[in-house]
């Protein structure tokens, strides 16, 4: 690494990347190689105000905290210029805690805050490293559980009120009210659900395609479900989300998912030569 990182810190740092006044001050202290235990408050204050002005000029919305800190810095600066207050009790008026005994350095509180904040910043950086290391490692989500191991239901696992809430929720979803509207809406939702299922399965099957028989519900099925399946296939074909192919008479019908960026093209090809198999290479 190049050793000369000190060069002109004021110019190299992007304005507006500071999280708050303490962050900015710490930057100025470090970049200016200032002694934090004997802060050159006048220099620090000037640099801080320069930054603040630059931020304003660039139309960055400067948070109120920055101005509060500017006032604090100016106050400290002025107090540093005053001669040490006479040794009188109760008249100290500095607002600091050095009430009894020797007067407190006006910079003390600021230094304490900078040190404390700086510590957490340092640790945050080391956590940033851990974050990076951790991201190199992958875990696995919970395995599918088949339910092959039945355990007896536990007493009172759910309350009876849960049943009532469920009922109310369902009734709200069905929407007891204008009958025509209700039923139409419900059917639409169901069809949409079926469509989503078809798309998900077809997409997962990828370029291999999905056998239609896999989409059919199992043996004692509800007629409604089959009807909805075919309605959704028709709809999805129409909008080009899927294409279907049957390679031989009475053979398996296969469903292919069409990625969004290939949809328009496919519809054209479709009209020209019948069946097209998407190849998302």
């Amino acid at each position, binding site marked *: 690494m190049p050793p000369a990182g000190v060069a002109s810190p004021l110019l190299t740092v992007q304005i507006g990347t500071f999280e708050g006044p303490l962050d900015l001050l710490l930057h100025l202290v470090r970049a200016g190689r200032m002694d934090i235990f004997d802060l050159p408050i006048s220099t620090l204050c000037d640099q801080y105000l320069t930054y603040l002005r630059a931020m304003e000029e660039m139309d960055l919305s400067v948070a109120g905290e920055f101005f509060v800190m500017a006032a604090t810095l100016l106050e400290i600066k002025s107090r540093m210029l005053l001669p040490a207050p006479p040794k009188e009790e109760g008249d100290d008026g500095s607002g600091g805690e050095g009430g009894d005994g020797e007067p407190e350095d006006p910079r003390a509180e600021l230094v304490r805050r900078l040190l404390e904040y700086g510590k957490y910043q340092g640790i945050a950086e080391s956590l940033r490293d851990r974050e990076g290391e951790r991201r190199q490692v*992958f*875990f*696995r*989500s*919970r*395995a599918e*559980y088949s*339910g*092959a*191991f*039945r*355990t*007896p*239901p*536990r*007493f*009172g*696992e*759910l*309350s*009876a*009120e*849960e*049943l*009532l809430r*469920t*009922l*109310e929720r*369902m*009734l709200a979803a*069905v929407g*007891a009210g204008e*009958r025509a509207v*209700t*039923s*139409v809406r*419900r*059917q639409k*939702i*169901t069809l949409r*659900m079926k469509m989503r299922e078809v798309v998900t399965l077809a997409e997962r099957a*990828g*370029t*291999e395609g999905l056998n239609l028989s896999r989409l059919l*519900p*199992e043996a*004692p*099925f*509800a*007629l*409604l*479900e089959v*009807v909805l399946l075919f309605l959704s296939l028709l709809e999805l074909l129409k909008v080009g989300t899927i294409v279907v192919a049957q390679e031989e008479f009475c053979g398996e019908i296969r469903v292919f998912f069409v990625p969004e960026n290939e949809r328009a093209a496919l519809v054209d090809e479709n009209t020209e030569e019948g069946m097209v198999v998407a190849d998302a290479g």
Partner: protein
Amino acid sequence: MPVDLPRMVEALLFAAGEPLTVKELVRTTETEVEALHAAIRTLRERYEHSALQIVEIAGGFQLATRPEYAPAVGKLLAPHANRLSRPALETVTIIAYRQPCTQAEIEAIRGVASDAVLKTLTERDMIREAGRKPTPGRPILYATTDAFLHYFGMAAIDDLPALDEDDEMMAEATEEATTALAAAGVRIDGEESSR
């Protein structure tokens, strides 16, 4: 330890958590199909002494536990799997409030096929068959069980909290749905005959 192809496949199968096709594996590892198959063979040998195995499933490969460990895994996961799913909860709610009722009536309210859920609920002893409805097709009637009462912490079915509004709402909703479907040319009451 070098990053070799079998281990790369191992990491992928582990992290994916679902079957990976040869195509996906070839693409991700940037290798040839034959090399990939060889890698899977090597990996299978390495896993011979493991509780895990590489299974070929649904057109892909997947890492899975060996059947011998199913009891242990079941003991760990069953408590989570044990809770009623939302569809199951909804279905048993309908049955509880309307019992005895048919599958068609349940489906008319839920708006989705309920075969699987009725099967689960029967297996879990939450519902039972309670005769047949004397309508065409003589569909099965379902009712809740004592285990159902137990699960929901009730002493008797009378402990079911009452719906504030008139109970007719529910009946009305069912009727509406049935009518609408009938209008759409879908007959739902007769289907039970196939069972």
